[in-house]
């Protein structure tokens, strides 16, 4: 039984699930607000965009998104995917089907990662869409006359995704642990808010829930000059490996499944 079959079945389950709708609607929230701003107050906004319009547009977008909404959506998605099994009482059927525990664990985990990538993709897509739409309505917007900086856009996406890996593995573990989905969400949000308070602390680069914002800050401080990944992003990969292993063995050695 290959992992790809298990992943495909997980994707069928995610179809039309609340996690899917959250990613679709959640990714459009900030771009929608931007579009309204661009359409309502073009005269105030156009002067701020003159030099590097796309860069400035995406930087503002990511700032609003990465600080709080993105980690919150990720926390929700991590709970919602395992919750499909809890809510429908289907864990027992999954564990009684001829799939190895590794396939069950990693197919669900891959689905969560794919959902987060989908969230990223849709956010970028909507951010492009709103700029183009605003430009079509108000010709004075400079978006259509300049090409976006693809490299820096790719970099901010990649670095933000890596900065989220720690949170994703911690939340996945908690969501497998607790049947009641409020528990992992409450723990996640509490840790997220605590991290925001501790952001100025010298050891903030060791708190996984602070990583997405640290990534954003480093990017807007001219992170281009530094190496691709910074300390906190490497730490995020470390947390990811540790908590993924912990979550897997926790599931494997649990007395009762399903």
């Amino acid at each position, binding site marked *: *039984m290959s992992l790809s*079959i*298990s992943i*495909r*079945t997980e994707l*069928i*389950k995610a*179809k*039309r*699930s609340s996690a899917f709708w959250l990613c679709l609607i959640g990714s459009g929230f900030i771009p929608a607000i931007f579009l309204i701003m661009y359409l309502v107050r073009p005269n105030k906004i156009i002067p701020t965009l003159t030099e590097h319009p796309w860069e400035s547009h995406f930087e503002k977008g990511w700032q609003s998104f990465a600080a709080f909404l993105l980690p919150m959506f990720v926390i929700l998605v991590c709970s919602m995917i395992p919750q*499909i099994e809890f*809510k*429908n*009482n*289907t864990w*027992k*059927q999954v*564990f*009684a*089907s*001829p*799939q*190895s525990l590794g396939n069950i664990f990693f197919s669900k985990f891959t689905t969560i990662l794919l959902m987060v990538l989908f969230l990223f993709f849709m956010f970028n897509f909507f951010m492009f869409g709103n700029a183009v739409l605003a430009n079509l309505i108000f010709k004075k917007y400079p978006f259509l006359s300049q090409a976006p900086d693809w490299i820096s856009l790719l970099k901010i996406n990649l670095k933000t995704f890596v900065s989220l890996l720690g949170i994703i593995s911690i939340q996945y573990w908690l969501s497998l642990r607790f049947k009641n989905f409020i528990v992992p969400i409450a723990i996640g949000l509490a840790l997220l808010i605590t991290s925001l308070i501790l952001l100025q602390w010298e050891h903030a680069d060791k708190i996984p829930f602070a990583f997405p914002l640290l990534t954003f800050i480093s990017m807007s401080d001219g992170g281009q000059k530094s190496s691709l990944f910074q300390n906190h992003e490497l730490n995020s990969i470390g947390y990811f490996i540790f908590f993924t292993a912990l979550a897997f063995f926790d599931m494997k050695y*649990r*007395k*009762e*499944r*399903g």
Partner: protein
Amino acid sequence: MDNVKLDVPQGSIYGFLGPNGAGKTTTLRLLLGLLRNQQGDIEIFGKSFSSQRIEILKRLGSLIEQPSLYGHLTARENLEIYRRIYKCNKLRVEEVLKLVGLENTGKKKAKQFSLGMKQRLSIAVALLHQPELLILDEPTNGLDPNGIIEVRELLKKLNKEFGTTVLVSSHILNEVERMATHVGIIHKGKMLFQGTLHELQQMKTKQAELEIETNDNSRAVQLLQAEFSLQQKENKILIPFKNNEQSAKINRLLVQNGVDVFALHPQQSDLEQLFLDITSNN
């Protein structure tokens, strides 16, 4: 669980009986690997579960307690998930839907199904890969009488037409009696009885009592007590039933001595009574 061994012959419908809390669900969950055994090993098809989990699960279909379905998906989508896992032919989806009578549910989501429909779809999931053994835990729980009949007929049909071996647990004795060929009774984690339905029914006959009603019970008791161990209950006399000759003899004795016999018939203890007898003896 103490040395529980279920002898489920191939092609049988095995009724696994026991009161709530006897260990039925625990046994079935252990068989499917949903509970980790604290000591010892579990074998199915003569193979060790711990070392050949996937091989064994490929040959099994299961339905434990409540239906396991994705409410936001249609019947076909629910089946498609397991079709991929069991690597079945696409045609199987339509076949099993037809078999359980759900081929016309279209785009209706599983959460909108009635409990009976959900249960039938869960059975369809369990049947998808044509398993040799179907393990069902209280499949008729919570169903209305019509739903109960549908599930029962479906299981009988599967057994008869496809030779599927069925292991079905229940606490409703009469239910098991209506479909099972073999029966196992569990109580407090131990097997109390195991054998064919016929053997169980013979046991019932052994425990039957002859019920006698006459116009003069005290006279009848005088006549009979020398020869039979009897007891009086309300206006009836009860004698342990042996055979028909014994009934004829008692009748003759009473009539010849001028006692009018209103009724004389063996009163079989129903399965429930038998069940209580076996469990209380242990």
